């Protein structure tokens, strides 16, 4: 049995876990459920030695333990199988399983025969009928997952944490995985199972623990709770959410998205976005909610022309069909994107504030089609720094040196300068402090009031409710709800977002 007692974890002033208690039982599948941001990942990272700074105790097999690294946790018998698998694609199965713990012969050379035969036994155990010298890159996602499990078994793991193990595998592979989970259970291992899929949880889990807003709400035997009760416990929130309800009627279609689909490049035949259609009206704010992996980001990336080969469907702007095969085309049609990861996708961190604001409108700043009018550029940057209240020492300050909120404002300013018709915002306030967050909310509302159509993607229900006039919910690549914000509640949004069959 593994017991975590009074675990508290803070990140730069934000409390991710607050006095959490958790009991994991041997020979049982222990489900951990909660919304995005409830603290599941943080808790698992503490158990597996990723985070070493926290308050509280972990008691494993009767002893207090504190891991200084993932390696220590692994040696103690705790293995985590991440959603994004961590195998080296150009090495073989055996080489991956023995990575960092290679067996050598008396000459100090790698003992491949021994490692391969050992691997063969492990693969038999997880029912994976492959040669140990097969390259990982030749394996499907489901098979790679089994290799990860084999790796955990090789490390003599007693606690195996599976983070969304069925998110990327086929039904047949799921059955296979479940059979192995049953075997591991019978051997007395502690299985920790994190999933958004309720059906699976009720099928496989023995115990549940609900986390919400960084605290453990309740736990117990799976057999004593119904699906409805579990969802209620995940959603129930004390704070009153202010909805953006207005009498305004939005009936002038701006962006019509028709039958958008996106193929999964990793898994031929499956789709990340399935036949999605919706309409965004002039001046309307549409909130798109969904859990991790629901296909929200993929949907707006497809609209933005980032997946030209894999996506299909029709995009109509103000009645005119547009063929969008690259971001430049989307921008020319008036669609602009504030991407999910502002540091990786939104900004040139090594360039100054001014140059980031003006990068999309340089053509308008050109004189005689030859050189840039620096005076105009400075004036433009000054306007937007004032308008958006961007806190920066100067226009030349490197974007890298600004806070997250101010960085996000730069990305928004870049598009405001370009007069968007449709603004797509993907997780616009992720990692941004409360003050800057409310400023960005205000900005989005003002922008919509000038007739811009806004689509906000968010993992936070309160954010969607606070901003949206209409709410869309996605699950497994499909739109599962489309309703006015007045009808939306935490419970019905979550219900639509959770996979049920």
């Amino acid at each position, binding site marked *: 049995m593994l017991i975590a007692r009074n675990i508290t974890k803070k990140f730069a002033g934000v409390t991710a876990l607050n006095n959490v208690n958790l009991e994991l039982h041997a020979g049982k599948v222990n489900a951990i459920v909660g919304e995005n941001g409830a603290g599941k990942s943080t808790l698992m990272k503490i158990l597996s030695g990723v985070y070493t700074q926290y308050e509280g105790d972990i008691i494993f097999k009767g002893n207090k333990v504190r891991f200084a690294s993932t390696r220590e946790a692994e040696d103690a018998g705790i293995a985590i199988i991440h959603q994004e698998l961590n195998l080296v694609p150009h090495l073989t199965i055996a080489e991956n399983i023995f990575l960092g713990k290679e067996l050598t012969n008396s000459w100090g050379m790698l003992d491949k025969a021994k490692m391969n035969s050992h691997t063969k036994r492990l693969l038999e155990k997880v029912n994976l009928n492959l040669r140990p010298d097969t390259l990982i890159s030749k394996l499907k996602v489901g098979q790679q997952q089994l290799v990860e499990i084999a790796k955990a078994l090789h490390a003599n793991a007693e606690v195996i944490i599976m983070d969304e193990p069925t998110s990327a595998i086929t039904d047949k592979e799921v059955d296979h995985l479940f059979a192995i989970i049953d075997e591991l259970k019978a051997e007395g291992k502690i299985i920790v199972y994190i999933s958004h899929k309720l059906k699976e949880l009720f099928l496989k889990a023995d115990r549940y623990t609900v986390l919400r807003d960084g605290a453990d709400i309740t736990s117990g035997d799976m057999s004593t709770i119904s699906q409805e009760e579990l969802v209620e416990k995940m959603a129930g929130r004390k704070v009153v959410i202010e909805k953006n309800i207005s009498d305004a009627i939005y009936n002038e279609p701006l962006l019509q998205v028709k039958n958008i689909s996106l193929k999964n490049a990793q898994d031929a035949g499956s789709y990340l976005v399935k036949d999605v259609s919706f309409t965004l009206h002039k001046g309307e704010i549409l909130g798109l909610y969904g859990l991790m992996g629901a296909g929200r980001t993929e949907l707006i990336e497809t609209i*933005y022309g980032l997946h030209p080969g894999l996506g299909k469907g029709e995009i109509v702007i103000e009645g005119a069909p547009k063929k969008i095969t690259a*971001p*430049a085309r*989307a*921008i*020319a049609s008036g669609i602009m*994107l504030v*991407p999910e990861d502002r540091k*990786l*996708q*939104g*900004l*040139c*961190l*090594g*360039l100054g504030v001014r*140059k980031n604001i*003006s*990068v*999309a409108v*340089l*053509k308008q700043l*050109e004189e005689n089609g*030859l*050189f*840039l009018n*620096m005076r105009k550029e400075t004036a433009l940057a000054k306007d937007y720094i004032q308008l958006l209240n961007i806190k920066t*020492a*100067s226009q030349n300050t490197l974007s890298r040196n600004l806070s997250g909120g101010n960085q996000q404002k730069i990305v928004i300013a*870049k598009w405001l300068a370009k007069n968007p018709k449709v603004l797509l915002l993907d997780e616009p306030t992720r990692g941004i402090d409360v003050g800057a967050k409310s400023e960005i909310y205000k900005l989005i509302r003002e922008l919509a009031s000038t007739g811009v159509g806004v689509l906000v993607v968010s993992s936070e229900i309160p954010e969607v409710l606070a901003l949206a006039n209409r709410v869309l919910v996605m699950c497994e690549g499909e739109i599962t709800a489309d309703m006015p914000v007045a009808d939306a509640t935490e419970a019905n949004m979550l219900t639509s977002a959770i996979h049920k069959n």
Partner: protein
Amino acid sequence: MAAIHYKQRIKSLQSLIALLLLCIVLTILTDKFFTADNGLNVLRQTAVNICIATGMTLVVLTAGIDLSVGSVLALCGAIAAGLLKNGIALQATDTYIGFTILGVILVAIIVGAVLGWFNGFVITKFNVPPFVATLAMLTIARGFTMLYTKGQPISNLGAKFAFIGAGSFLGIPVPVWIALAVVLIAAFITRQTRLGRYIYAIGGNETAARFSGINISAVKMIVYALAGAMAAIGGIIVTSRLDSAQPNAGSSYELDAIAAVVIGGTSLSGGRGTIWGTVMGAIIIGVLNNGLVLLNVSPFWQQVVKGAVILLAVIIDKLDKKD
């Protein structure tokens, strides 16, 4: 605030300070260094590297590299010499096309630009790493040079053509004027134009640049074409100075160009650096070569010293970035 500006200014002058220190040391150690003749000599010898390194800077700013410039230089120089000397004789129609000096210069620059553009095309359309694409071009262009010259130098190009490499204007060698023009054009591009801004944006964060609607492929192809054109200009200078197009001209010139870029403080991962820095870098290498000769240092040791200077420059740059 003031401290940051002060520091940035120091940083932009860093290579100039290094150059001045180097000059002071050489002036003290040898009485032949600090003379007008020697100064012009150094600049004349450095002019070709400045041209190539300027083009290289544009490429490196986009986080790329161009290894083919030495071979492109040779091919363009050979074509210029060949056309000037022999023209094109079409036997089928019994016609002969002769070329003026201006004509061969134009053709050479266009050929250089096309070869560079082809580098950019392969890099962007087929996703070939710049290192590999331009390495292939290094071999291909050298091969064509051998084919075109049949492995023999093309010599005796006339006094007028020799003026480009050996002549002086207002007391300053013509190659220095040419290099100055190339540098001014490149500095204008990087500082004052949309293209320049896109170069920095792509090198700084290609994904963000793409998300901002910048046509990455077009910008890269232009940049590699410019690098090819500047290598061609270098080729014309070299050919003129020697009054001969040598089939193996420009071998390993790409390394001196990259060294100048690096010493000048441009980041090989792109997005950071200036043309001004590269010019300083090229002159530092030139002064170092010249000074070591004047000091009678053996050519073998000269290579060791040059390598050490490159390492030192990069290490100082890294240490600087840490704080």
